[in-house]
């Protein structure tokens, strides 16, 4: 990566990666009103980091987002999702019964909104962590894309 003939690629992706990550959060929190949700947002975040890895090299990406963080994130995501289920059970409802989170009767939506938001957050963490773990497992075996491949 000491030669500088990818400079256009690097400048463009440096501008794009924050926007991609921002878009992922839009997809995440707008899932209640439009298409999208935790799964898509998780994949988009993972792709933003993978784009960084492809352009700047896997080691640089690993320094920014360490593999130990991605695999913990995957596990934490599943735990968040499952945890909402246990939260509902502690409140006296069934597993993943959002209506029971705040002890609401039918027709009240507070628990549904909060519950869905938290489990979508769990899906976001789980999916992005798992995708990045898979990518690191593949890409960590070679240094980077050679110049003649582009």
């Amino acid at each position, binding site marked *: 990566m000491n030669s500088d003939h990818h400079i256009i690629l690097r400048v463009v992706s440096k501008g794009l990666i924050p926007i991609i990550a921002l878009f992922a959060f839009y997809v995440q929190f707008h899932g209640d009103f439009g298409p999208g949700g935790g799964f898509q947002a998780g994949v988009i975040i993972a792709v933003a980091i993978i784009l960084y890895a492809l352009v700047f090299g896997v080691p640089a990406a690993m320094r920014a987002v360490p593999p130990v963080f991605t695999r913990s994130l995957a596990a934490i995501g599943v735990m968040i999702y*499952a945890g909402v289920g246990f939260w509902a059970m502690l409140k006296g409802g069934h597993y993943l019964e959002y209506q029971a989170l705040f002890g609401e009767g039918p027709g009240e939506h507070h628990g549904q*909104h909060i519950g869905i938001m938290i489990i979508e957050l769990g899906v976001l963490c789980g999916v992005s962590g798992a995708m990045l773990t898979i990518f690191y497992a593949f890409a960590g075996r070679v240094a980077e894309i050679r110049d003649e491949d582009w």
Partner: protein
Amino acid sequence: MQGILANDIGIALVNIFLLAILFVVAVAIARMRSLFAIVMLAGIYSLVSATWYVAVDAVDVAFTEAAVGAGMSTAVLLGAMLLTSRTAKPERLFSRLGPMLVCVATGAALIYATVDLPALGDPNSPANTGVGYTYLQINWYDTGIPNVVTPVLASYRGFDTLGETTVVFAAGLAVALLLGFGERSLAEMIRKEGRSGGRKPAAARTAAKDEEAS
């Protein structure tokens, strides 16, 4: 299919155009040998099919296809491509005959099956009369969330989505256990930096080591 043609010739033209692009890209992928170009074309194939899903009003599916098919799988295939050679081996003409027969037979069976399919958006089709219609009716009272897809995935079928998240996690775990966590390249980088002394911390470390040695 008949319904589309009868209702709106414009949408039919868009459908034909997009499907034609898909066909051309698929043929190009089948005939190419350069793996890099094939990976890129596969991404284009996913993008075009995502556009087509929008044309048939499956916006959430289109979104997922664009994110997973065009973004994620292209990136993962690029990573996988780096582990192997850059061009596919040319195959003998004979050995392609079997796969082609399978493809033609499957395609013929699928086309035969489309005859029984309900028209796009048919209110009397099984998908629109059964549980789907019930969700549309009771969703607002139950959850108060405007996009019906989200409560169906997260609330009505929360167990399914929990299972899916767990499956994705398990896939990541399995790949990591088989291939390692990818920390080899990180370790290599640190070793390289230590040798050349390119970065400050590494340089400081080597300097400290030199001092110790002397």
